[in-house]
């Protein structure tokens, strides 16, 4: 079965090996590029994007990043009636977190915390390999059975040493999940800080998603007066930052209302504040700076989530 996911020029398929193993195939539809007003330019862009993604997933495979969806292979094929199609094959997942959450009838705190822990580990692994994911969102967090959760879709990733066709974009990933410094104009931020800062924000946004069902960007925009939402104003990031802080305070209040346990709230609030503060300069953990030269280290967050999982498993948070 084929269906389009996210990108207009790629199709995804569930495939099955004759021995019964299942996998996921992502095919680049180069033919569709021919209908683009600039077919040559589009073909070049698609080729570069495919080569980049293949390089990154191979790199992740070679580094054995356990929380990143594994690439099983890649190649080209010529389906009947079509031109050459290039593809990547990935390990099969059960579905993304939205699907898993839809199958739950009760609020399962432990499941959510474990999912977040796995996600944070995944991004830590990527950052440790000089890769920023750039497109962390619920549809890219996949459940993998007993292996827990893994991150998928590195097509919009950024690597410190490998050029990507999206390097020129401030916001390489999905703008609807983007942090405010990328939604509003005029934020002058060094590239690595911008990339890692965006990943941090997206991680915090996933925490908010787990407890509210909505991403942080939507919650922030809801809390902004209509005429200061990014769709309605040309004001710069610096000029709307106080209003974003106000909106962030509102989101924290809403989140607080959904987390009754005080101990859990203190921990979740600290995580959200440090990961998706609207002010990028306040994101991250300053304690990491001396150790790794950047405040965007994830070790402490990963440890914190592991501890929260352990405490939840022991029933320390009671009913949430």
């Amino acid at each position, binding site marked *: 079965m084929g269906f389009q996911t996210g990108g207009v020029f790629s199709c995804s398929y569930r495939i099955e090996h004759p021995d019964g193993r299942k996998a996921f195939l992502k095919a680049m539809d180069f033919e569709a590029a021919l209908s683009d007003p600039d077919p040559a330019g589009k073909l070049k862009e698609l080729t570069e994007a495919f080569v980049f993604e293949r390089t990154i997933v191979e790199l992740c495979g070679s580094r054995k990043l356990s929380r990143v969806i594994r690439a099983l292979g890649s190649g080209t094929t010529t389906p009947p009636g079509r031109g050459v199609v290039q593809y990547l094959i990935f390990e099969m997942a059960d579905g993304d977190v939205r699907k898993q959450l839809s199958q739950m009838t009760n609020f399962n705190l432990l499941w959510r915390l474990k999912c977040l822990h796995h996600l944070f580990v995944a991004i830590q692994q990527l950052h440790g390999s000089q890769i920023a994911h750039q497109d962390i969102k619920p549809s890219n967090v996949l459940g993998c059975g007993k292996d827990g959760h893994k991150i998928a879709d590195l097509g919009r990733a950024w690597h410190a040493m490998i050029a990507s066709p999206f390097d020129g974009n401030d916001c390489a990933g999905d703008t609807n999940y983007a942090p405010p410094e990328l939604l509003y104009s005029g934020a002058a931020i060094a590239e690595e800080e911008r990339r890692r800062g965006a990943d941090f924000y997206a991680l915090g946004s996933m925490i908010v998603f787990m407890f509210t069902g*909505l991403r942080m960007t939507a919650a922030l925009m809801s*809390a902004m007066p209509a005429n200061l939402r990014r*769709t309605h104003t040309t004001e710069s990031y610096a000029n709307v930052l*106080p*209003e974003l802080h106000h909106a*962030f305070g509102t989101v924290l209040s809403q989140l607080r209302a959904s987390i009754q346990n005080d101990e859990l709230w203190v921990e979740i609030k600290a995580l959200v504040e440090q990961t998706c503060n609207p002010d990028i300069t306040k994101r991250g953990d300053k304690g990491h700076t001396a150790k790794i030269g950047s405040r965007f280290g994830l070790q402490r967050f990963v440890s914190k989530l592991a501890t929260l999982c352990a405490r939840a498993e022991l029933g320390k948070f009671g009913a949430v």
Partner: protein
Amino acid sequence: MKSFLGEKDRKIVPRWRGFRASVGNTQNETPKLGDRVSPSLQSNVDDWRREGTLWTALDAVAGAIVEGRLDLVTDALSRVQVDPQTPPAALAILVEHERNNSVHEDADLPVVARCREQIRASRIRLGEYPYDAIEWIDLARSFTTLGSLEKARRSVAAALTLAPADVFVLRAASRFYIQQGDPDHAQWILTKAPRTLRNPWLLASEIAAASVAGRESQLLKVAERMERADFRDEDLTELRAALATVELDAGSQTKGKRLLRRSLNGANENALAQIQWMDHTRLGNIIDISGTKPPNRHEAAAWKAFFEGNWDTSVDKSLSWFQDQPFSVNAGIFSSYVLADILGRPDDALAILDISLRANAEDVTLLNNLAYSYIQIGKIDIAARVLESIQRKPDNLEYATLEATVGLLAFRQGLPDEGRNLYENAIKTFQRGGAQDFAARAAVYLAIEEVRARTPNSALAVKRAFDLTKDNKRADVAAKIQELERIAKAWLSEEGAAVESGL
């Protein structure tokens, strides 16, 4: 007698409303992204259509919120709103989204209860997240209204530390300092903010603060250039009104008139009140403002009804103005004056003064109105204590007003000679200061008291009151004259005597 000062020198100081009610007036309101639907939102919508689960519905709604296109996902939104599995926080976020589409503040609660509730809520929020300058300002506003001025000052300082260049914070802070009688500081925080040179809202506030401080802004040239620059009329209206005020105060009628007319384009309620005021007091009602109807135009409507002698409307609008700006000394003075003096509702005036004096405890005019209202309901001792507590500054108009009110008190205490002397002194002080309006009104009040007390001086006092007010066109004076006529007629029919005044 009642005083009614502050009428001559309205400046266009910024309004101070809660954040939610404020920003609608100061920022762009036109969507800039048009109708384009991003591939991202389309992908969210496709996922929702294909899978039809609550969590894909939530994702589609979230994407639509970010792009301002909830119209595309009405089915997903309905699912989210009715599905029992929807996280309560998602519903709260959607409610917040809807509330923020409106610029109106919740005003169901009475002022004091509302402020207390807002303080409680702000404290909780700031306890969770203290880096929110806007919440500090909202907290300061509630503290100011309730008269906790030191707490308000600290809250404003915290906001300025966190967001020293924010338009809402700077304008509210400058309003606070003007409110506290420190226009120099109000001007200073605006002058030192680099954004003031680029933002018409801040520049208008700076010019107003300078005017209140009694000096000319150093940024007038910048303002004149900005007034002609490429901004929306809505963003320039207060700047143009501020410049017009400076020009008219300096006697430049032509330029002031032109600026006032330009200010009318896209006028907000504050600019409208200023235009109406300057037009009425300086130009003689030559500008037609009837086609301009911004939201919350309570002050302008209150004054308009006041000028026309439409007292019920005037008091209704002034009460809305007071609800909107409960810390505003002018709103308090206006409401209490019309209620106590014109409409004869001193109890209602006392309720207003109870709130207004919290933020303006030392305001002489409010205290004077308080004493007057107490006199009207017969609480003479309390009125005497209020009047004794006021710091007097001889030889100014406020002092003369107070002296007249003490004269009223003396009459009601059964001491007409003392009362008459005090009124006469007040009238002389008004006349010496060129305040003929005030002198005439004091004469009317004196005549009313003379007649009420049936003193031998009644006829003379009535005649002088009519003489001094015969050219007066003010509706409030006319109302007092009518009252005097009513009282005098009753007295004449009682006495069966003729008076030279021709009644």
